[in-house]
C-alpha cells in the first residue's frame, strides 16, 4: 500500500467536495472567529494570569506594572449587593470595597470603623452613633448620617431579600441627628446590636448615589460603591473580580495596587493555582492534601479557628432519643478527636460547649470523653440496646461532612447503635431537616451552625423551642422551658456580666441534656504562598488579607 500524504488543496477543485469542506470551514471559522476575541483584547493586567515562569528575576524594569494580590475562592458570588448576599466568602470579598460601621476584631472586641464612637442610653433602647468625619465613598459623595439611614432602611426593607433582616428587625427607626450623628431606636433591648453591626457583612455601607449607576438599582447592586480600601474595577462572572486600591482611603493604605479574586470551584484546581504560583492565597484546598501542604516550604497553611460548630442534631421528639441517657450515650460513643485527626486531617477542634470558643457567652463544659463502655451502660439503663437510627448528612457543605458522618456511624455501631447514613444535595437536605416533628423520621442529622457575628445570640436559637421548624431551624426540636427562659432573658439583658452568666447557665443545661452529639468547631483552612506576609483570619470563616504584602 502506498501512503502518500493527501494534498488537501487538490480537494478544493473537486466540486463534490465543496460541501464537505464548506461544513468544516464553517465549523472552523465559527470556532476561530469566536476564539481570538479574548486573546486579542489585551486582556487586563498580564500579571493576573502570569504563569510565573520567572517572576522575581525581572525585577529591574519594575516601575509601571501594578502589583496584584491574587486570591482563589470556590464560590461565584450570587450577588455583590451587600445587604442581600448570603455567603460568608462573598461578604469576605465585598469587604474589600464596602465597610461595616464598626469593626469586630478576632476576640470579638468592638472597635471604631466608619463610626468613631457611640453612646447607649441607660434603658438600652437608643444607640447614638457618631460617624468618622470626612470619609467619602468611592464616587466622591460624603459618607454622612443621611447615607447611613438610607443604607439601614434598605437593609430593613421587607421587599428586599436580606438574610440579616431578622437580626436587625429590632431597629424601629433610624434618626438623623446631624450631619455625622445618627440614632437607632430599638423596639426592645438587644445588646448584641453593636456586634451585629460590626460582624454582619450585610450591614456594610454603600453610597446611596450609586444605585443609579450603571448596573445598579435599588433592588440589586452589582457594583458596590463603598468606602473601603479597594474600589470595584471589573467582574467577569464565573471567573474573576478585580478591585483597585482606593488612593483616597481614610485609613491605612494597603500594599497591593490590585486584588484579583479568582473564582475556581474545584478545590484541586485552586491548590494547583497556588502551587504553580498563579495565585497567592486560596481557601479550602482539598482537605486530604493538608498534610502535604504543611510539608511544602513554598506555602503556609493557616487552620483558622472559626465559629462554625458541627453537631449531629438528635431528633429529641423521637421515642428513643427523647431519653436523655441515650443522647448522652451517643456523645460518649463517638471519638471526636480521632475523626478530626483522621477524617478532617486536623481541620477541627473538639467542642467543649454548645458554641465556639470565639463567641461571646462561651463557657467551657466538662468534656464527653470517648467512653464506649459508659455509652453501652447508659444505653442499657435506658433499655435502648441494638437500636437503629436514620442519619443524614450533606455532601460538600462542610469539611468532610459525609465522610465524618460515616465515621460517626462507625463509632455508634460499636455500642450497638445501628445508624444508616445517607446524603443528599443541600437544598434537598434543608428541606428534609425542616419537616415538622410528627412526620420527621430523621433521627440524626449532621449540621453546621455559624452565627453571623461573635455573639451567642444566634447560636442559642438552636436550643430555643420557639425556633423549632417551621418557625426556625431548631432542628433538634429540643424543648426545655428553663433554657428558653434563660436564652430569652439573655437576649435582652443589657448588663454584660449577667448576660454572659445567663448563657453560661443555659450552656450547662444544654450540655447535660445533649440534644446534639457535640462534635467540633471546624477550622477554616487558608493556604498562601510563603513569599507573602501579613495574612490573617477572622473567626467568621474569613481570610484577613487586605494588608498582605511581600514577605521580604
Amino acid at each position, binding site marked *: 500500500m502506498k501512503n502518500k500524504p493527501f494534498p488537501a488543496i487538490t480537494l478544493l477543485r473537486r466540486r463534490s467536495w465543496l460541501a464537505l469542506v464548506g461544513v468544516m470551514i464553517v465549523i472552523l471559522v465559527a470556532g476561530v472567529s469566536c476564539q481570538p476575541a479574548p486573546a486579542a483584547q489585551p486582556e*487586563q493586567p498580564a500579571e493576573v494570569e502570569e504563569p510565573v515562569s520567572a517572576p522575581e528575576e525581572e525585577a529591574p524594569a519594575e516601575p509601571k506594572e501594578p502589583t496584584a494580590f491574587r486570591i482563589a475562592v470556590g464560590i461565584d458570588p450570587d450577588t455583590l449587593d451587600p445587604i442581600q448576599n448570603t455567603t460568608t466568602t462573598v461578604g469576605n470579598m465585598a469587604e474589600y470595597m464596602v465597610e461595616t460601621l464598626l469593626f469586630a476584631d478576632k476576640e470579638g472586641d468592638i472597635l471604631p470603623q466608619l463610626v468613631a464612637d457611640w453612646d447607649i442610653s441607660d434603658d438600652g433602647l437608643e444607640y447614638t452613633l457618631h460617624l468618622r468625619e470626612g470619609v467619602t465613598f468611592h464616587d466622591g459623595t460624603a459618607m454622612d448620617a443621611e447615607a447611613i439611614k438610607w443604607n439601614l432602611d434598605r437593609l430593613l426593607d421587607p421587599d428586599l*431579600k436580606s438574610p440579616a433582616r431578622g437580626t436587625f428587625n429590632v431597629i424601629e427607626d433610624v434618626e438623623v441627628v446631624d450631619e455625622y450623628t445618627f440614632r437607632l431606636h430599638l423596639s426592645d433591648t438587644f445588646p448584641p446590636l453593636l456586634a451585629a453591626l460590626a460582624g454582619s457583612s450585610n450591614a456594610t455601607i454603600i453610597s446611596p448615589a450609586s444605585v443609579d449607576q450603571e448596573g445598579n438599582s435599588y433592588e440589586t447592586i452589582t457594583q458596590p460603591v463603598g468606602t473601603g480600601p479597594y474600589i470595584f474595577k471589573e467582574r467577569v462572572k464565573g471567573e474573576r473580580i478585580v478591585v483597585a486600591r482606593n488612593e483616597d482611603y481614610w485609613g491605612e493604605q494597603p500594599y497591593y495596587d490590585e486584588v484579583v479574586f479568582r473564582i475556581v470551584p474545584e478545590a484541586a484546581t485552586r491548590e*494547583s*493555582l497556588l502551587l504553580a504560583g498563579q495565585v497567592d492565597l486560596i481557601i479550602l484546598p482539598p482537605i486530604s492534601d493538608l498534610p502535604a501542604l504543611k510539608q511544602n516550604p513554598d506555602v503556609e497553611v493557616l487552620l483558622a479557628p472559626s465559629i462554625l460548630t458541627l453537631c449531629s442534631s438528635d431528633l429529641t421528639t423521637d421515642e428513643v432519643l427523647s431519653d436523655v441517657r441515650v443522647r448522652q450515650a451517643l456523645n460518649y460513643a463517638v471519638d471526636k478527636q480521632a475523626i478530626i485527626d483522621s477524617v478532617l486531617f486536623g481541620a477541627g477542634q473538639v467542642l467543649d460547649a454548645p458554641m465556639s470558643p470565639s463567641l461571646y457567652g462561651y463557657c467551657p463544659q466538662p468534656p464527653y470523653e470517648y467512653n464506649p463502655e459508659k455509652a453501652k451502660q447508659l444505653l442499657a439503663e435506658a433499655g435502648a440496646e441494638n437500636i437503629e437510627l436514620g442519619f443524614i448528612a450533606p455532601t460538600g457543605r462542610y469539611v468532610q461532612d459525609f465522610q465524618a458522618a460515616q465515621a460517626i456511624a462507625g463509632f455508634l455501631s460499636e455500642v450497638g447503635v445501628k445508624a444508616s447514613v445517607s446524603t443528599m444535595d443541600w437544598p434537598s437536605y434543608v428541606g428534609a431537616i425542616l419537616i415538622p416533628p410528627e412526620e420527621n423520621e430523621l433521627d440524626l442529622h449532621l449540621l453546621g451552625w455559624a452565627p453571623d457575628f461573635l455573639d451567642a445570640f444566634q447560636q442559642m436559637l438552636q436550643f430555643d423551642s420557639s425556633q423549632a421548624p417551621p418557625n426556625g431551624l431548631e432542628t433538634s426540636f429540643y424543648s426545655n422551658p428553663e433554657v428558653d427562659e434563660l436564652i430569652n432573658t439573655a437576649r435582652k439583658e443589657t448588663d454584660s456580666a449577667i448576660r454572659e452568666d445567663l448563657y453560661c447557665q443555659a450552656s450547662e443545661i444544654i450540655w447535660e441534656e445533649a440534644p446534639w452529639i457535640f462534635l467540633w468547631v471546624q477550622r477554616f483552612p487558608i493556604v498562601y504562598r510563603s513569599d507573602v506576609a501579613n495574612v490573617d483570619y477572622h473567626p467568621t470563616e474569613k481570610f484577613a488579607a487586605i494588608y498582605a504584602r511581600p514577605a521580604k
Partner: protein
Amino acid sequence: MSRYIAQRLLAAVLTLIGVSVIVFVLVRLAPGDPARVIAGLLAAEEDVQRIRVKMGLDQPLPVQYAMFFGRMIQGDLGTSARTREPVLGEVLDRLPATMKLALISMTMAGIVGVVGGVAAAYRRNSKLDFVISVGTLFGISMPVYWLGLMLIVLFAVRLHWLPAAGSAKATSYVMPSLTLAAFSVALVARMTRSSMLEVLGEDYVRTARAKGVREQVVVLRHALKNALIPVITVIGLQFGALLGGAVLTETVFGWPGMGRLLVDSIFARDYPMVQGIVLIFSFLFVAVNLLIDITYAYIDPRIHYD
C-alpha cells in the same frame, strides 16, 4: 428542500416547547424549597414566605407554567432568584465562553478525529492503527475530571507553561479544549475508522483503483465521502455531549461558562435560571442538528427530503 426545512423548524419549535414543560416540571420535582435556600439558614420564616410569594411559588403549578410560558414567548426568561438579575442577560453573559470551548472541541473532533480515523483505516493493522486505537480507547474511557486535573498538574504546576484556570489568556484555552475534546475526538476517530473500513472494501473502490485512479483520490473522494455520513451524524450529536461536558470541564478549569452557572443554579433551586439554561442548551442542540441534517443533502445527493 425548503419544505423539509420548514417541517424541521416546526418540529424544532415543538421540541423546545416540550423541553420547556419537562424542565419546568423536573426542577420542581427536586426536593428543597428555593425560597429557603435563597433566604439563607438564618432568615425568619416570614421572610422566607415573602420570597415564596415574590417568586410566584405560592401559585398552582399550571398558573406558574402559564406565566413562565407567556413571558418566554416574549423572550423574557424571568429573573434569577439567586442573582436577582434577568436570566437572559446572565445566560448571554456566559454563553460565549461555553460556545467557544464547544466549537473549538467540535472542530478538533471534526479534523483530528476524521484524519486520525482515515489514517487508521487506511493503514489497518499497522503500528499507526494500533497507536490510534489505543489513543482513542484512552480518550473514550478517561473521566473528564481526572484528565483535566492531570493536565493541570503537568502543564501548570510542573512545567509552568499554562494557566491552571480562568479564560483570560489565549493559552487558557489549551487545557479546557483538550479535556473537553478528548472524548469526541476519540469517538469520531473510531467512527470514521470503522466506517472507512467498510467503504474501502466496496466494489466501487476496487473498480476505481483498477481503472488507475490515483490513490489519494480513491481514498478521499470515493471512500471518505461515502464514509462521512454516519460521522457527521455523530459530530452533531457530540455537540450536545460537549455542552453537557462543559459542566465538568468548566468546574475543573474555573471557566466562566454556562455549565458552571447551571450547577450553581441547580444547587440554589433557582428555577428560572435552570429553565433558561436548559432551554438555551436545547435550542442550540436542536439548531446544530438541524444544520447537520441539511448538510447530508450536500454530502450525499441520494438523500432527498420530501
